[in-house]
C-alpha cells in the first residue's frame, strides 16, 4: 500500500444539485421477479427531529440472491433491469419512501464448522446528511424472516438494539414496511464500521 484513502467530507445541504440525477425510489421494474415491498420511514436526529436534508442509498441483491456485479460469481440469474441501486432524499418531514423487491439470501462467511452460510435477506444502506462528516452504514432486514435468527450480522448486535435493523410490518397496504433511522440517542440505529 503506497497511498491512503481520501478523507470524507459532508455532503452539506445542497447535495441535490449533484445527486438528484440518480435519485431512484423504485428499484425494481415491474418485470423483476420476487416479492414487491414498499418501504418508508424517517431519518431522525438526536432530538427526534426529522432530518429534511438527508439521503439514503441502497445496495441489494435481486430476489435470487444475486448482486449485479462482476464479483458475484454465483450461478444464479441476473436480471438486466435490476441494478440493485437506490437513492432517495428525505422530504421536509425527514421521510423517505421507496419500492423494491425483497432480496434473496446471499452468502455469508463460512460457519464454525467450515460450511458455507447464507445471510438473511437485507439491504445495505448508506446514510448521508448535512451534519454527517462521513456516511453512516447500516442494514435493513425484513420482519418475520426465519433466516434472521441465523444471520451472522444480526448476531453481532445485542438485543434490544438488534431490532433497530429490522423493519416493521404495516397492516395496510399489504407489503408495506416501516423503518426509521435514528442518528443519535435512546433508540439509535445500529451503524457499522466498514
Amino acid at each position, binding site marked *: *500500500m503506497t*497511498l*491512503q*484513502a*481520501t*478523507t*470524507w*467530507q459532508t455532503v*452539506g*445541504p*445542497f*447535495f441535490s*444539485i*449533484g*445527486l438528484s*440525477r*440518480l435519485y431512484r425510489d423504485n428499484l425494481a421494474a415491474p418485470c423483476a421477479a420476487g416479492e414487491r415491498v414498499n418501504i418508508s420511514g424517517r431519518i431522525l*436526529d*438526536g432530538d427526534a427531529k426529522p432530518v429534511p436534508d438527508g439521503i439514503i442509498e441502497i*445496495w441489494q*441483491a435481486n430476489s435470487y440472491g444475486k*448482486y*449485479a*456485479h*462482476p*464479483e*458475484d*460469481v*454465483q450461478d444464479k440469474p441476473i436480471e438486466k433491469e435490476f*441494478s440493485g441501486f437506490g437513492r432517495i432524499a428525505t422530504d421536509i418531514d425527514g421521510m423517505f419512501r421507496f419500492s423494491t423487491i425483497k432480496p434473496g439470501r*446471499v*452468502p455469508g*462467511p*463460512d*460457519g*464454525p464448522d467450515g460450511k458455507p*452460510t447464507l*445471510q438473511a435477506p437485507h439491504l*445495505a444502506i448508506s446514510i*448521508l*446528511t*448535512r*451534519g*454527517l*462528516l*462521513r456516511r*453512516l*452504514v447500516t442494514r435493513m432486514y425484513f420482519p418475520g424472516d426465519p433466516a434472521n435468527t441465523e444471520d451472522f*450480522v444480526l*448476531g*453481532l*448486535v445485542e438485543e434490544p438494539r438488534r431490532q433497530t435493523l429490522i423493519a416493521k410490518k404495516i397492516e395496510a397496504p399489504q407489503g408495506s414496511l416501516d423503518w426509521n433511522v435514528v*442518528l*443519535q440517542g435512546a433508540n*439509535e*440505529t*445500529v*451503524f457499522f*464500521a*466498514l
Partner: protein
Amino acid sequence: MAAIKGYRRCAPGTQPPYLHPPYVSSAKRAPIARLIHLPHTLTEITGPVFGTEFCDVKASDLTRQHVGEPLGERIIVSGRVMDEDERPLRDTLIEIWQANSAGRYLHSNDQHNAPLDPNFTGCGHTLTDSEGRYRFVTIRPGEYPWTNTQNAWRAAHIHMSVFGPAFATRLVTQMFFPGDPLIPFDPIFNCTADEAARNRLISKFDWDTTIPLEALGYRFDIVLSGRESTPIEDNSHSHGARK
C-alpha cells in the same frame, strides 16, 4: 463460495469523526454508540455499476450547459481515481456539485445574498477512463458565508461523489484550492485529525493541464480503499457475538 477479499479499513485519524463540535450541525446527528465492526461479505465487496448509459458526455463541461457562458474564472479540474495500491479505477462514476463564482448554489435553501448565474447550474458527472483519469471544465466556485458560527465562511470547494468498485469504497468529499486563506478556519476541512490526510483535499495548481489563454488547471487525485491482500479469516461465529 470462495473466501472473500475485503477492503482495507482506514488508518486512524485519516477519516473524520462523526462528532466534531466546531461543525455545529454534527452535534445532533453524530451517533453516540460505538460502531459495530462489520466483516466484509459479498454485500460489501460488490456495489452499483454505472456504465456509459448513466453518463452524458457533455456533463463534464459545466461551462456549456446553458445558452451563454457562466461568469467567473474558467478552470480545468482533473486527476486520477486510484486505489491505495495506485491501481487505476476505471469506469467509475464521479458526480460533482458546486457554488457559482459568486458563492451561491442553485438551491432553494441557499439564502446567501449573492447573485445566481443563469448560465451556471453547478452540476456535473463523468466516468473515469481506462487509466482512471477524469476531467471537468468548470468555473472556480466562490467562498460563501454560512450560519455555523458568527461570521463563518466556507473555503471555496467542489463537492465530489465517487462510487468505486464496491459498497465499501463509497466516497463523498470536497476538493479545495491551494492558497485559499479560509482553509485554516474552515471547520469542515479541519474535521480530520491527520494533517497530511486533510491537506490532500487541497488540489494542486498544474501547468500541464492549464490551457494557454483559456483556463487554469487544478489536479486532484482521488484514492479509494485498497484491497486486503489475503482473504478474510474473520469468522463472526467464532467470535460468539450472539448471546
